[in-house]
């Protein structure tokens, strides 16, 4: 494009000394945790890694579900689907191994599915667009220095406490009577994995087509 007039660019501070300071504190905490319980240190390190990767790649689950409606972009949605396809290969192997060779317990997050899942999911989807980020997005942006997400985190904590207080009501009415459905119980292991990968692949393809056709301009 034609040269634009020169912008006033301020002398920026090099923040990498602060990086080293925070990194040192993080390493010290790791060592302290490891002295108490190596499991705690492991969770802490995974948290750091997740946060670093989320920020570095600007990965935002709220935007993945919201942008198709607002800007017509599905690039983040497709990235989420790609990750889901990759994990649909690894997770069932871990589950299968756990069931056959381990202690017979089904690992992973397979929970009762019913009205409560749909109601909670809808509230969550609505809330994250209004608050400017989902749970991970909120944490990541607190780290980036956004006051708005610090308020959202405060609201989030109030909401979880309220939900925990109300939980027995949901449990007696919905959760207790809802089935826990693990897809391999219905489709078999290979059937469930294949069907899920094909479905995710089809959504990926449709999302790409949707993105190419859509030029949302408010």
């Amino acid at each position: 494009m034609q040269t634009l007039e020169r912008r006033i660019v301020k002398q920026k501070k090099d923040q990498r000394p602060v990086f080293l300071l925070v990194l040192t504190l993080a390493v010290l905490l790791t060592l302290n945790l490891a002295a108490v319980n190596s499991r705690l240190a492991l969770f802490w390190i995974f948290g750091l890694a997740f946060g670093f990767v989320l920020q570095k790649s600007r990965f935002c689950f709220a935007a993945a579900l919201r942008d198709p409606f607002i800007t017509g972009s599905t690039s983040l949605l497709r990235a989420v689907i790609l990750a889901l396809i990759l994990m649909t290969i690894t997770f069932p192997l871990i589950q299968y191994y756990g069931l056959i060779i381990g202690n017979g317990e089904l690992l992973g997050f397979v929970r009762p599915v019913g009205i409560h899942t749909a109601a909670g999911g809808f509230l969550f989807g609505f809330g994250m667009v209004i608050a400017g980020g989902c749970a991970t997005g909120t944490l990541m942006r607190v780290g980036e220095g956004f006051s708005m997400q610090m308020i959202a985190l405060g609201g989030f904590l109030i909401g979880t406490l309220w939900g925990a207080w109300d939980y027995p009501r949901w449990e007696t009415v919905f959760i207790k009577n809802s089935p826990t459905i693990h897809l391999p119980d219905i489709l078999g292991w290979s059937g469930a994995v294949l069907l899920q990968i094909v479905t995710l692949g089809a959504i990926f393809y449709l999302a790409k087509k949707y993105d190419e056709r859509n030029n949302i301009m408010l």
Partner: protein
Amino acid sequence: MLNNYFKEPWSYTTGAVVLAFLNTMLFIMVDKPWQITTGFTYWAAWIYQGLGGSPELWPYFAESSSRAQALTQGFFSNDLSLMDFGIIVGALLAVLLASQFKFKKIKSFKQFSAALLGGIIMGYGTRIAMGCNIGAFFSSIPSLSLGGWVFAVSAFLGAWVGGKVLIKYLL
């Protein structure tokens, strides 16, 4: 040149592959995949205890041995709490490495209310759906759980309504 390398964001695809890898490694090492909001619930319960409340008597905490045990722990002695705190510090490290940290103020009362209300609605939703975009979606669909799909479709619909509200009232 090294500085530019730290500033350059990774592609979404790179992020997706690395997150899938990390989630798989976590699942292998601790028998549980990634989750966020149960840790939030503990944070909230500890704060409430600090204010004089007794959430440990509520059925939600009392009737689950793992949750009851978690409430006896603290911010730095609970695994899920540490993982959530790690995300904040990990993101801070990434921003500092790029020299792009800036403290951002609240823009308006409208923004403040949206953040607070949105947060409360999200928080409530995660308890009844038993998870957020991570626990009930990102870790649940690969667990071959039908619940993960139901959550994803519902959150997508919620985001659609949220988008309408955002454009109408918050823009």
